[in-house]
């Protein structure tokens, strides 16, 4: 994938995904390698994001690269009315690679078409966030020893959550069994279920968040956001239903790990944090190694 932009997880072949995960495992053993010495990475955050931006900047710094960029559209020339087209064409003259987050969907694909240097999509609206998916895959493989034949439970907002859609589509490459747990209003959209039907993968839908999690290898939690509900009463009814508590983990499998893209609000009770099955903070650490691997793969550095 040398010099290729990373816009959507679907752009990567299964071999390319495995290569990135293997490379990331190398960075986990030895994170401080000055492979980006003399390289400049632009981080263009047209909308604020703490976690993703810091993770990328930390990954670049550990590799000895330099960072230019902005953290918010308000501090860029966007406020002067500059188009994305002009910003990308200009900035691509200043750097070796662009990391970009933008509120509009498809902005990363567009940027990758006009940029002189590769673009990594760090989130384009509700569309794609491929580096999150790769770090989720890394976390799953690391904790389970494999990506094959796992039972993955996706919980919370399955309708609007881009991370769960991308993760589901990616995990579908490894014969995963899926369980979807969500309120009626936030069910997994039909297009994804049709996709699973077509490739012959099993999935089960539930509205109750109960004992069925005893079968899970991975529980992937997401936030149920108030603004997603057309009827506020519906939100009040479900807001405390999709909360994971330590007591619910009693009969779960020993290999179970709980993942969450973060930030968390109340959907994982803090009493889960000390349970060894909680993995969401380690998951963010994995994000650094995976982003190091992605940066080096694209820039062709070993």
């Amino acid at each position, binding site marked *: 994938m040398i010099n290729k932009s990373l816009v959507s997880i679907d752009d990567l072949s299964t071999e390319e995904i495995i290569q990135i995960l293997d490379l990331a495992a190398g960075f986990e053993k030895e994170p401080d390698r000055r492979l980006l010495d003399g390289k400049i990475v632009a981080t263009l955050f047209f909308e604020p994001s703490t976690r993703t931006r810091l993770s990328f900047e930390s990954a670049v710094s550990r590799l000895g690269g330099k960072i230019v960029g902005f953290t918010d559209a308000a501090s860029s020339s966007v406020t002067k009315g500059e188009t994305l087209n002009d910003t990308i064409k200009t900035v691509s003259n200043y750097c070796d690679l662009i990391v970009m987050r933008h509120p509009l969907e498809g902005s990363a694909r*567009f940027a990758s078409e006009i940029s002189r240097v590769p673009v990594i999509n760090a989130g384009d*609206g509700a569309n794609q966030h491929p580096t999150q998916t790769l770090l989720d895959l890394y976390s799953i493989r690391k904790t389970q020893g494999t990506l094959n034949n796992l039972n993955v439970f996706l919980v919370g907002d399955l309708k609007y959550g881009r991370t769960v859609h991308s993760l589901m589509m990616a995990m579908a490459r490894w014969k995963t069994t899926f369980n979807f747990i969500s309120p009626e209003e936030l069910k997994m959209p039909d297009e994804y279920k049709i996709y699973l039907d077509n490739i012959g993968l099993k999935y089960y839908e539930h509205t109750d968040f109960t004992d069925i999690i005893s079968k899970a290898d991975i529980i992937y939690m997401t936030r149920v956001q108030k603004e997603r509900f057309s009827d506020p009463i519906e939100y009040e009814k479900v807001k405390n239903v999709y909360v994971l508590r330590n007591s619910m983990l009693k009969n779960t499998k020993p290999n179970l790990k709980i993942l969450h893209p973060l930030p968390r609000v109340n959907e994982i009770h803090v009493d889960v944090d000390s349970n060894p099955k909680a993995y969401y903070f380690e998951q963010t650490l994995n994000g650094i190694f995976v982003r190091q691997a992605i940066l080096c793969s694209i820039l062709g550095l070993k």
Partner: protein
Amino acid sequence: MKEPKQLSVSAIQNGTVIDHIPAKNLFKVIQILGLDHIDNQITFGTNLDSKKLGRKAIIKISNKFFEDEDINRIALVAPQAKLNIIRDYEVVEKKVVEVPDKIEGIAKCMNPKCISNHETVKTRFRVISKENVALKCLYCEKITNQENLLII
């Protein structure tokens, strides 16, 4: 004896006749095929009675023959269009249009948050269903279906 006055779209010697265009989309067809920028003789009629379409339009272009790839670009606005290829006043070939696999620059993405609705970007779609037309935007990856299809 005077010949009776006649108002009709006259026959052409050589060229292409595009029939069964929905009357309301005539100018879109002209635009998509770039007929407003060529020097060939063109005659067209519109709001003609049609059993199938209610009101149809017809275009006759002298000395112009289209590649399938070009003509299929009108499939979104004139799915039932029929082409007659004329040589020496005779119809030598009939063609129907077919929805292509890719659509560029004709349709509008229905997602208001798509970059193509905010910057000067030529829209690009992969056609994922041809019968009930469904287009997947190559930018935002959202699907625009027949009911929401807008021609630029």
